[in-house]
């Protein structure tokens, strides 16, 4: 019941609260909602459409980060793809999204490509992994990848960990705080594919192992606060156990 004159709080949830589909999040006109598929609106009521974590800024900016879910392609995203088929002039790449991506031969090879003389499998075979960028995607066409760019191309060393794609933002952290901490502590090079595949290159396999454990811990405890400090302590402990730190 609302009494007249009483101040109505437009946002009905707290910061970092777990919400469920159909849950009323906010009411009224002075709510700023980031346009995304995790929130929908009926009249001036905002509801959550997924299981997610809320993010409330300054008491009026609201967004929901999904806790479960798949990767949905976006132009300029860096992803780790796996070659699943070769055609005459292109590869089909699995990027863990509802759509299979395409990587054109002309993009990978520098000289003109003649399908009569050359076989694409010589360059990238089924099962190979590539770090690629999405250059083209809309509702009517499948995503197109490119490997032209700094650091992009075939992955030849290191390890890949898969996590739930919707938890990638938490692994990165605010302005990269989480991932930079993991990189510093484990001394590994870590590249995050936004589709939930993470590429790790460490000085030794033991360092890589610790980095994997840390990332899996972040994935599992996404919704519990104080994560960065906990992960930091965890990495130091694990390194010590393995005799890599004092």
């Amino acid at each position, binding site marked *: 019941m609302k009494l007249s004159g009483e101040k109505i709080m437009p946002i009905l949830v707290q910061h970092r609260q777990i919400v*469920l*589909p*159909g849950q009323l999040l906010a009411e009224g006109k002075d709510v700023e909602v980031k346009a995304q598929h995790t929130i929908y609106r009926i009249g001036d009521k905002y509801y959550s459409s997924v*299981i997610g974590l809320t993010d409330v800024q300054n008491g009026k900016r609201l967004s929901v980060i999904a806790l479960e879910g798949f990767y949905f392609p976006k132009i300029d995203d860096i992803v780790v793809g796996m070659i699943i088929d070769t055609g005459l002039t292109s590869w089909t790449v699995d990027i863990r999204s509802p759509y299979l991506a395409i990587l054109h031969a002309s993009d990978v090879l520098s000289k003109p490509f003649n399908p009569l003389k050359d076989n694409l499998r010589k360059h990238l075979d089924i099962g190979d992994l590539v770090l690629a960028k999405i250059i083209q995607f809309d509702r009517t066409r499948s995503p197109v990848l490119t490997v032209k760019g700094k650091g992009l191309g075939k992955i030849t060393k290191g390890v890949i960990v898969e996590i739930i794609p*919707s938890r990638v933002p938490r692994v990165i952290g605010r302005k990269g705080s989480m991932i930079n901490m993991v990189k510093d502590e484990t001394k590994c090079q870590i590249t995050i594919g936004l589709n939930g595949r993470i590429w790790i290159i460490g000085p030794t396999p033991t360092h890589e192992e610790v980095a994997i454990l840390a990332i899996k811990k972040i994935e*599992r*405890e996404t*919704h519990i606060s104080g994560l960065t400090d906990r992960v930091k302590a965890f990495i130091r402990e694990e390194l010590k156990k393995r005799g890599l730190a004092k």
Partner: protein
Amino acid sequence: MKHEKVKLVDENGLRIDGRKPDQLRPVKMEVSVLKNADGSAYVEQGNTRVLAAVYGPREVHPKHLTLPDRAILRTRYHMVPYSTDERKSPAPTRREIELSKVIREALESVIFVELYPRTTIDVFIEVIQADAGTRTAGLMAASLALADAGIPMKDLIAAVAIGKVDGTLVLDINQVEDEYGEADMPIAMMPSLGEIVLLQLNGVLSEEEFYEALKLAQKGIAQLYEFEKQALMKKYVEVKVEEV
């Protein structure tokens, strides 16, 4: 042969299994029970046991089924051969095909299918043990599995069947009440929005009885909705912080 009429409501107003007319059967719900599915759930209402698995959104095969402006939804409601007291042939029956259709239509009104053009969302519902109310339990399991798969939807679905037995309206009927009762009305709703997504009626109810039944269903649905929310929350609450 003369049939003895089964007494479904006794002189104290209690039902054949000892429940009050407005009492649900014991409920158990769990999500993420299957590893290989994108989302899954298990729902138990009394002796009715249902398992649901969701895959997708993913590429459509065969390709010609693809729709350019939205995802297609494919639903299979199926009863395993050992779910009933006499073996049920595993081939889909006329009844199962119809239930797959009404469940699909209920789910279509909940999922934002227009977000994922040219894909499919596949929902599999397996009835492991049947004791009436399998479509309502199946619908709840499916909606929990969809939420678990992270597919955007308007609301969870909570559903219950109302029956009329010995002239009394009762909540959440079991097999005996379904067989010997006068009417059976399954109702499914999006509880937060107050919208009905499925309503069927088998048998005869007067207009007053119909509204009475609807009210009774809403009461049961409110309780089931709480169980659903608890089941989803449980997955996150149970994750314990590993202290080092």
